[in-house]
């Protein structure tokens, strides 16, 4: 806002007609405005799909299984698209679930579409209600994929706001991405 105001005041005191100089200047103003005024941009989320809680007995079933997904919120419609690989058995079901927060098991909300076998794709599109939108924005929604070998859940991953992914073994400035959870009160 500060920048556009500043440019407008310069413009007000210059040429009056729509000559090339003014058109050029107006384009610059428009670009500047576009650069600084956010559009009603889609919100983007990313998901690491990793194995559900496992013990020594089930650990052999989850070795090497993983996936990634992205989610885009356009208005109140969420579109999910992802891939998975390395399951020890055929993927049987996928759904979007609601929990208290990242890393906490919760309740299924609606089914997602599965393609493939031990590797494949997961996708879905759904209009979210107000509470689901709030849940999404507070990192309470997660994708879960079940498999024949792990019917109670093989992979899961929370929809987290888009963030920088540091390569393994590469230091990043700051703390890197740490999803906030606790409310700080005074």
């Amino acid at each position, binding site marked *: 806002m500060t920048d556009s105001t500043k440019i407008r005041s310069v413009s007000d005191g210059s040429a009056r007609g729509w000559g090339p100089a003014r058109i050029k200047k107006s384009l610059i103003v428009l670009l500047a405005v576009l650069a600084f005024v956010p559009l009603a941009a889609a919100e983007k989320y990313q998901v690491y799909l990793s194995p559900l809680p496992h013990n020594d007995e089930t650990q052999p079933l989850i070795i090497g299984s993983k996936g990634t997904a992205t989610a885009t919120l356009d208005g109140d419609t969420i579109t999910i698209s992802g891939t998975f690989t390395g399951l020890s058995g055929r993927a049987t079901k996928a759904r979007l679930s609601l929990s208290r927060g990242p890393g906490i098991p919760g309740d299924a909300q609606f089914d997602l579409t599965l393609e493939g076998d031990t590797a494949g794709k997961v996708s879905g599109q759904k209009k979210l209600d107000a509470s689901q939108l709030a849940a999404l924005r507070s990192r309470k929604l997660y994708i879960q994929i079940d498999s024949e070998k792990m019917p109670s859940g093989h992979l899961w991953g929370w929809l987290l706001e888009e963030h920088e992914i540091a390569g393994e073994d590469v*230091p990043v400035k700051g703390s890197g991405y740490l999803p906030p*959870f606790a409310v700080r009160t*005074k």
Partner: protein
Amino acid sequence: MKTRYGVALTVIAIAGTFSGWSAATRAQQSAPYTDQQATVGQAAYTQSCAACHGRTLSGGGEAPALAGATFMSSWGPHTTQELFTRIRTSMPPENPNSLSADSYASIVAFILKANGAQAGSSALTPETNIAIVSVANGQMPAGLTAAAAAPAAQGRGGRGRGGRGRGGDDDSTAAAPARMGLTLAGTIKSYSSITPEMLASPPEGDWLMHYRNYSGWNNSPLTQITPRNAGLLQLKWAWPLEDGMRQQMTPLVHDGVMFLSTNVSNTVQALDARTGDLLWEHRLGPMNTPGQNATRTMALYGNLVFYPATDATLYALDARTGNIVWKTRPAEFPDDKIGGIMVAKDKLLVGITRCNELDAKDHCFIAGYDAATGKQLWKFYTVARKGTPGGDTWGNLTDDQRSGADTWIAGTYDPQLNLAFWGTGQAKGSSRDQRGPNGDALYSNTTLALDPDTGKLKWFFQNAPGETLDLDEVFERTLIDHGSQKTLMTVGKSGLMWKLDRVTGKFLDVKETVFQNVWAAIDMKTGRTTYRDDILEKKPGQAVASCPSPSGGHNWQATSYDPSNDLLLLPLSQNCAMYGGGPQLFYEMPGTDGNLGRLSAYETNTMRPVWSFQQRSPFLTSVITTAGGVGFVGDFDRTFRAFDIKTGKTLWETRLPTTAQGYPTTFSVGGEQFVAVPTGYNGGSPEQKPTTMLRGEIQRPTIGHGVYVFGLPKNVN
């Protein structure tokens, strides 16, 4: 609709809570095992399981209780076959399925007996499949484990084949040494007596104490190794240590002499720190003491080296010869262990741990000793008893039911304030539902400021009031000054990095250093934390999600403070667990993309994160830093690395024979700077949980305890 996972947990919890306990009061039918089988099982249990689960099956740390209410809540609804399968496929953790089927069956028989099941006429087999709650009520027969709880005798050893217990304390790979005692007498002439002044301002080339200085910095003023030449580091010498049990020690160095210890035979060794030549060796014994505990700390003062043996005997050895000058046993109960030790001025401060015996007067404490004579001067009990300050914070529990607040990590010391700072572990039972309706449970998970001369408590700050997820706040208290402000910083298992005023104990600030989902709120005025509702409402046998897991976002792998850049460097772990409903179920921490290890640098004045580094393998050594601008850290996957303190960029790395584990140190002899790192493959949760999560992915030998010493090539010096 609940997920099937959630449904399963709920069903188990409800079954455990209602079906189990209603059944507990009804008459028990004969169980499918024989008395003889249970006796065999007790012996097998003592050898392979008691190290972690306790000789009285009371559990401890992350090892769950295998008898009583907690066990029945978790396992009552399950069958004997499920218990057999669980134990066989997961225990001992380092080597599952390493015992015979008969042995596993006999251990299950013993567990049934310990939970009140009546012996019958037929032996339990792997196929026996009967609901545990139908034959057991959680009531242990009187005297069943009394013999097992007798004091550990000197010379206990010579045991035969034993599976590696949890953490490997019952490891069988170590052959009995040819003889015990002073196997090589020392004649070190050029050893100067360590004075209180030297402890307050350590000689540049020495590493005199656990964290190198009183303030807990793990920082050396040595400058020879720099970011420019660290890539040239090379192995100078190596020294094997006895394999088995838990190897997490700190090589101490003074006047060119390095002191090492191994807790398999409780051997202390002095080596020439430049060449690795053995100067003296004292095999103190006993061998393979039951009961999990790592010996992390020794201490030096005068001409003495202090060693806490695994049977809780505290030795003062002559640092020049290895001879015993004095010894004492501070612990009060047979299973108690010595945790951290430190010297403050001329006092030896000793923390006691594993003091878990419920319904007994077994309470943890910190004790002060005259370092020169071994005379005990004072004791400070870390569990507040009725009628004492804080004694009303344990609800209705009797004094003997109050347990925990272990002091298993060494403290730090401010000579100007004459205050020693210690952290304590969680209350036990570890969860609120085990302890019953209760309060903050002082002084568990607390920062204590004690007068080292009297043991008087000057102030305390409870970092995690009423803790319930085995998330200790026991770790090192790092003392840092910002101008005239004297602060104390510490990081607990939940990954919260605390800043306190160390003069008054006043809360100043707190920061999350890994993702956590256990604290729903933090009061930034008082520092008081509030759990998630479902954690507070947890019922016996119910599992709740805990990020970090009880292995900790931070654990005993100590931090390092670099005063040049005001950076606190934190080795961190990123994993979660379903906790409290039986065996812990592990999973990756959200937002980490499977990186279990994190190393982060924080500017302490501002609490601002400066850089972070993540990798798949968790870090299992402390971090050390040097005035040369180089830091060092080692990990589960055998990598030991040097990094640039300012950026986190790796400067050099090497692979060791097995996991880098313990406390690296750096020192100089004859003008040459060296870096020493221990290796070890057994341990508690920080070592075990990665073992579980990375099994089949990262292979590492379960042999190879040792110390590796690196330095620069001669021509660089």
